[in-house]
Every structure is written in structure tokens, then in C-alpha cells.
């Protein structure tokens, strides 16, 4: 495409190699001024790498960058900021116990005579900026006390404060509630109206449809083209991204629930700070059904799972697995009782990253005689067992038995965990945020597996912060708010608005 001043940013023929691996292979990106431009691609496709090049964190091996028709060289984030580029990372870079104002001016402080910090003036400037874009943030609140959605606005303000004309948002909706996402989209349109340009990195199709004007697609480091969002569809975007036709709707037959497998009564759990997070929760999960728990992060989901898996102590109440008491025993006992859990944070709870793949696949079952008699651990057995799982669950790369787990992509790491959990044929499968950070193809796989497990007769407890996921996959939807189940619905009898309201603590009408 021709270089022109109509474009805020034009990146042409960008090539980036890491050793022998080509992360980006001649990618083009043309972002018109005053538009929202989405970059779509699977995990590891090179979206973030491309943006890191624009932000000066990496240097491209080949290719040019033009801004407003002029060629620029960006070799550091400082230079990117000078060129009016601001980036909001997926993981916020905020000082938790600083106030909003302090965080915004950090590194670019307003100083009076003799370098004395002028907090009053700084506060005014932050207020003015916040009001201009309708951000509605309290300049004196501490970061630790405000919601994730607010924190994100602080990050955006930080970029605007540094004079950003072009905002890069990396996976901005990953942590937001549906209502917060709406507000963010509103803010984005406001920013465009006031002359800014926004680049958003995402793999969520719906948000692209709602917010973006144009969408550039990258598949495995290769530029697949740019489409006009208005004339495109979610299905078209998905198949362009993955390179094959993807089924976006979850297909399943009606559930045939059996006996109650998991029964929770009056469960109360405190978090590690001693604050009650689960407050007298009741829940039943039957075999052959998927119970999905919808809720905003921090309403007791983590503590609920911790109590079932016996990682946390229950203050009161009972957790029964087919009538057998699980409460306050050991994680081992939970597993032996037929519960397998896909954890929300796979790096923290799910995997031993420095272990090779075949060591990771037996993390509960290594004690079984199947993997060596007595003190011996039979590594040959481990390997052949893992080879089967790799084949069965399509874990890539093929032949990764002896590769370190840390070398696998996020989607394949998740597949390895699911393979490990499902292969024990659990009676209850807990899936806590099972698709977090996964791309469309991998999400499809996870959902299919959950449904297959249900059809095998397992009870499935799905806990997710993605409302769509809960609504699409579950047979029964329960809403958790403030450590209690505030509503239970059969699938199809409730809409997003009603659930969203319940999730935010509103009354069901």
C-alpha cells in the first residue's frame, strides 16, 4: 500500500526473527487516522511481537515504519512515546499502593522550582484529562482499592498524559465484565471522536465486530490481509485467523443428568488474608451435566475451587463426593475420590514448567504401580504413556515427550493438562477458566472435550469469568456473587443482561 499522510501508522514488510524462528514474515499494517484497527490472530501468531516492534521494545530485522507519511525509526519505548505512541499492556504496570495520580505521573512528574513535586498541579492535570474523555476516575484512590476496569482506564490515562495520539491496547477485555467491556468500547469511540487512533490486539471476535473499523489478520507470522469489519462476519474472521472453517457455536445434545455427584452445603471459606470469600454456598452437580458458574473474578470462585481441592480450609459447611465427606482432607484425597481439576492458572498450579512433557502428564498418577514398582519411576513407561496422550489430544509438536513443558505454546500446555486430568477418568471434572488465554481453535477443543466428558457420564463443574463460555457450554447456569449462588437457571432460560445484573449484585426480576 502506498505511503500517505492519511495513515497514522504504516508498517510494511516487517520481518522479525528469533534465532531460527521467524516470528513475523513480511507483515503489513496500515492504520488510518481516527479509526479503531484490530489485529487478530491466534496465540503465538505474532500480534504482540508486531506491536512490540511499533512500541520500540523490539527492532525489526527488515521492513519500514511510517507515521503520517514520514519514515520513522523507533528503537526504544521512549522514542515511541515521543512519536505519540502509547501502549496498554495486557498485564497492568501499576504500583498497587500508589494513588491514581501518582501512578499516572510516575516517570513524568510535574515539578515546581528546585525539582519539588507539585502534586496539586499534577492532580488537576489528571482530573482535566479524565473529565475530557469521561473516564470518571478518582485521582486520589489507591490502585489496590479500585476495580480492574478502573485500573485499565488509569493505564489509558497514563498513555494520554504522555501525549499519546496512537493507543495500542493489548488484549484489553481479557479481565473485564460485560458491562465494563461496553464502557470500554464507549470510551474507545469517544477517543476516536477526539482525534485519537486506536490499535487493539485481540482474539475475541465479538469485540472486534462491536468496536473496530478495520481488522488485520496475522496467521503464524504471515499477514493474511485486512478486512472492513462492517462487511465481514465473525465466521469469516475466525476462518481467516485459523486457516480452516471453525465452528463458533458449541454443539451438544441435551444432557441426561444422573445422580448428584458433588454436593456442597453451607460452605464458608476464608482467603489467605482471613476475609470470608465463600459465604454459606450451596451447590449440587449431577453426573452427565455441566454446571457453569458465572461471576466476576473475586467473588469466591478461587476459594470455592481451593476448598473442593483441599488447598484451602473450609471454615464451615460440607463438601461431599457421592456422599463421602471431602471437607478438610488432603488434595490427594480429593483426587483419589474421583475429582480432577483443570486449574485457572496453569503455570502456577497446573504444570511444572522445567519438567519435560512426559514428567508432567503423570503428576497425580506417578505413584501408581503402572509407572514403576516400589521406589522406581519407569521413564520408558512414562514416555509411551505420554506418546498416547499426545496422539489422542493432538498435543504439538508431535514427539515432544522429552521437551521441557515451558517450550510448548499456551494452548498445547493446556491440552497437556486436560489430557492428564481426563485420562484419569474422573467422576467430577472441575474446569476453572479452562480457556483462559487460548485461541479460537483451542477453545473449540476444550469445549468439545468437556462435552465429551459429560457424555461419558462425568459431572462437570465449569467456572469461568467469560459469560459467553458459561452460557454456551453449561446445561445449568449458576451465578456466584459475594460468595453465594444468587441464581440458578437451565440453559436457554436466561439472557446475558439478566446474568450480568446478577453478577454485579443486582436483584433478579
Amino acid at each position: 500500500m502506498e505511503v500517505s499522510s492519511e495513515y497514522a501508522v504504516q508498517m510494511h514488510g516487517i520481518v522479525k526473527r528469533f534465532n531460527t524462528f521467524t516470528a513475523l514474515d513480511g507483515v503489513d499494517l496500515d492504520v488510518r487516522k481516527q479509526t479503531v484497527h484490530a489485529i487478530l490472530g491466534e496465540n503465538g501468531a505474532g500480534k504482540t511481537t508486531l506491536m512490540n516492534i511499533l512500541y520500540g521494545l523490539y527492532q525489526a530485522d527488515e521492513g519500514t515504519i511510517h507515521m503520517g507519511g514520514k519514515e520513522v525509526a523507533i528503537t526504544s519505548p521512549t522514542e515511541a512515546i515521543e512519536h505519540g505512541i502509547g501502549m496498554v499492556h495486557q498485564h497492568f504496570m501499576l504500583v498497587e499502593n500508589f494513588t491514581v495520580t501518582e501512578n499516572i505521573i510516575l516517570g513524568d512528574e510535574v515539578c515546581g522550582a528546585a525539582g519539588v513535586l507539585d502534586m496539586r498541579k499534577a492532580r488537576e492535570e489528571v482530573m482535566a484529562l479524565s473529565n475530557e474523555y469521561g473516564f470518571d476516575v478518582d485521582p486520589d484512590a489507591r490502585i489496590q482499592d479500585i476495580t480492574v476496569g478502573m485500573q485499565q482506564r488509569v493505564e489509558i490515562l497514563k498513555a494520554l498524559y504522555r501525549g499519546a495520539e496512537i493507543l495500542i491496547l493489548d488484549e484489553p477485555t481479557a479481565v473485564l465484565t460485560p458491562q465494563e467491556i461496553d464502557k470500554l468500547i464507549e470510551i474507545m469511540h469517544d477517543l476516536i471522536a477526539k482525534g485519537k487512533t486506536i490499535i487493539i490486539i485481540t482474539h475475541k471476535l465479538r469485540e472486534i465486530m462491536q468496536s473496530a473499523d478495520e481488522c488485520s489478520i496475522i496467521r503464524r507470522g504471515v499477514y493474511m490481509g485486512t478486512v472492513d469489519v462492517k462487511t465481514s462476519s465473525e465466521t469469516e474472521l475466525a476462518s481467516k485467523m485459523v486457516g480452516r472453517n471453525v465452528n463458533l457455536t458449541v454443539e451438544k445434545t441435551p444432557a441426561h443428568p444422573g445422580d448428584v455427584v458433588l454436593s456442597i452445603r453451607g460452605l464458608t471459606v476464608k482467603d489467605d488474608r482471613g476475609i470470608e470469600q465463600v459465604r454459606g454456598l450451596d451447590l449440587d452437580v449431577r453426573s452427565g451435566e455441566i454446571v457453569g458458574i458465572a461471576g466476576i473474578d473475586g467473588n469466591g470462585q478461587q476459594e470455592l475451587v481451593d476448598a473442593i481441592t483441599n488447598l484451602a480450609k473450609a471454615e464451615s459447611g460440607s463438601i461431599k463426593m457421592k456422599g463421602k465427606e471431602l471437607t478438610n482432607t488432603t488434595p490427594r484425597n480429593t483426587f483419589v475420590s474421583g475429582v480432577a481439576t483443570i486449574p485457572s492458572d496453569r503455570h502456577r498450579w497446573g504444570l511444572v514448567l522445567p519438567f519435560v512433557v512426559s514428567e508432567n502428564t503423570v503428576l497425580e498418577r506417578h505413584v501408581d504401580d503402572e509407572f514403576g514398582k516400589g521406589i522406581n519411576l519407569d521413564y520408558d513407561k512414562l514416555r509411551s504413556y505420554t506418546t498416547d496422550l499426545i496422539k489422542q489430544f493432538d498435543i504439538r509438536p508431535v514427539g515432544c515427550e522429552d521437551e521441557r513443558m515451558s517450550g510448548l505454546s499456551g494452548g498445547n500446555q493446556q491440552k497437556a493438562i486436560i489430557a492428564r486430568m481426563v485420562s484419569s477418568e474422573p467422576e467430577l471434572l472441575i474446569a476453572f477458566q479452562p480457556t483462559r488465554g487460548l485461541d479460537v481453535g483451542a477453545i473449540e477443543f476444550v469445549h468439545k472435550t468437556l462435552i465429551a466428558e459429560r457424555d461419558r457420564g462425568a459431572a462437570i463443574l465449569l467456572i469461568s469469568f467469560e459469560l459467553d463460555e458459561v452460557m454456551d457450554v453449561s446445561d445449568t447456569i449458576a451465578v456466584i456473587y459475594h460468595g453465594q449462588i444468587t441464581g440458578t437457571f437451565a440453559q436457554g432460560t436466561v439472557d446475558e443482561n439478566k446474568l450480568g445484573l446478577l453478577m454485579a449484585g443486582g436483584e433478579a426480576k
Partner: protein
Amino acid sequence: MSKLEKFLRSRFAAALFAVLVGFVISAVVLAVAGYDPIASFAALFNGSFGKPKYISNVIIKATPILLTGVSVAFAFKTGLFNIGAEGQYILGTTLATMVGVTLNLPMPFQLPLVLLAGIVGGAALGAFVGWLKAKFGIHEVITSIMCNWIAFYFCNFIVNTKTFHKPDSSSALPVNPSSYTTILGTWKKSEAGKEFLKGIPWLREILLKTDINAGFAVAILVAVIIGFVLTRTKLGYELRAVGFNRDAARFSGIPVERNIVLSMLIAGAISGLAGALTITGIAPHTISLLAAMESYGFNGMSVAFIAGCSPIGCIPASIMFSALIYGGMSVQQSLGAPSDIINIMIGTIVFCTALPGITPVLADLVHKKREERDDARTTKNGTPLPEKEA
């Protein structure tokens, strides 16, 4: 990947590189101080391996630091920093002495009991540190440093007790000879032995002039067993899982607290065994009043890190370390160069092993050079490399 590149990415290369840098820096220091580096290194080598007697002494001195090295390496592989090998070693020597002095049984009973006493001493101290960590979350570095001093003063206390103090000396009583691991200890001093050894001068030198004992063989055996336990057993698997990711281990039902205690207990037992083997193997076969830490534990840490925390790697590392210390004395004797130069060398080597990133960087360089060469070749032939397909 070329062979050179592969080699540079190996752990062995990192250790070798560290040793090389240590020698180069020592050479510079020696030259600046006015000594001939080449002559000094020659003296160093000669002083460690020049005579059978020297070799024997190097091996004797390598025994305790091989074991404390394995102790530190083992703990490290399970995510714990056993800075307490020193104290475990001291407690090992103390308990071994107490049992060896008190009991006087025939060798097949006496020796195992004395060794066991040392093992139990070290294991108890290690397990205590592990228990404090598992139960109360107190960092093992802090508690094991404190335990080092507890062991230190306990040793001095025992030396001064009526039961164990050897009159008119600063030592305890030596253990009974049935506890000795000295090789051919009685035979070599008998008439027949002396007569026989006259014909074989090198053997005579080793047997009569050094305390050659079975300790090193035991230490190698322990290193191999520990290596096996770590990489081939369920216990080792669990211990490493706890070491790499405590949360994931707990999540999968591995009893994390028990494994922390067990890991420190085993590490302590190995260091305690090192202490017991010193008592049974080396004259004067007893403990003495300590004025300062003897550094067997701390040198073990150096050995472990030079070996990249591989138990098997500790074997060559301990021999090298021992050779540097023992041969270093002859640098002073033959050239008058201060033996502190050896400490500088050791310091540099250990420092460089803490920089594991250096040799992979060299590997990257080699890789890049090769790529450039390949690029140059293709352009010369007029056929550019084909574009990579997705």
C-alpha cells in the same frame, strides 16, 4: 546446530569456561604481583598430582567436600538452599566421635554404628531446618546459618566434657581403632606389610605417608545413588516437582511439607556422613576445639555450583577443588607466591559459574557467524535463500 554450538550450550562448557576464566584472572594477578604465572601453575599442578602421595592427599581432601557438595546439590535440585552443610558436617564429626569413643565393638559392628551416628547427627539438624520451613515458613538459609553455630559450639562443648576430653590437649579422645576406615591400616604397619611394600615404592608412599581410606569410594557411591534417586525414582520425582513448583506439586496431591523435611533430612544425612568419614578415615580420628568454621560445608557449596548441582558432576569438581587447595600450598613453598592467589582463583571460578548465561551467548555468536557465512555464500552463487513459506 553445529557441534561447537551444541557444546557451548552444555553445562559442562559453562563449568569449563568458569575454570578457564579463573586461571586467566589468577595469571593476571600473579603477573602483576611479579610472579611467573606459568611457573606458578606448573607448581600448582605438580603440587597436586606430581607424586603418588600428592594424588592420594588430593583424594583424601576431596572426600568431605564431595559429600557436602552432593548435599548442597541435592537440596538445590529440590528447591532448597542448604547453607547448613557446615553445621551438619560438624555435628556428624561430633556424634561419630562420641559413639566411636564410647563403644568398642568389633569392626563390622563398630564402623557402621559410628557412621550411622554421623548420619543421624547431620540428618537431625537438616530435618530440623526443613521442619521449621515446612511448619512455620522460616527461610532455610536463616535457620541453617544459626544451626551452623549451634553445631559449632556443641562440638566445642563435647570436646571439653570430662567423658570425652583428652587430657593435656585441645581435642577429644580418638575413636577406637575398630572404627577406622584406613586402608590396610594394621597390615601396612606390620613387619610383613613393611617388607612387602619395600618392593613397591609408590604404594608404600601412599599407604604409609597418607591417611588413604575408603571414604572416597563411599562418597562416590553416595553421589551415584543420589543421582539415581533424583532422576530415576518416585521420591526424586516428587522432590524435584516440589523444588520446581511447590504450588503445582501441592495441587497434584504431593505432600509438599513432608517432602521439604525429607529433602533437608537427606541433605543433612549426606553432610553428616562426610563428618563421620573424616573421623573414621583421617588422623587424629577425633574432634578438636574449633576456633573458626572449617569450611567443609562452604567449600561443598562451591563444589556443587561448579558442578552445576549435578551429584555426579560433584566428583570431578571436588577433585579439582581439592587439588587447588592442596596444590596451592606448594605454590607458596616453591615460588613464595602467596597461597591467597588460590583463593582468588577459586573465587573467580565460583563467581563465573554463577554466570551461566555466558556460554550460551557465545553459542549465539557462533550461530550468527555461521548464518552470515551461509548468507554470503548464497549471494555469491547468485541464488538467494528461498523465502520461507508459512
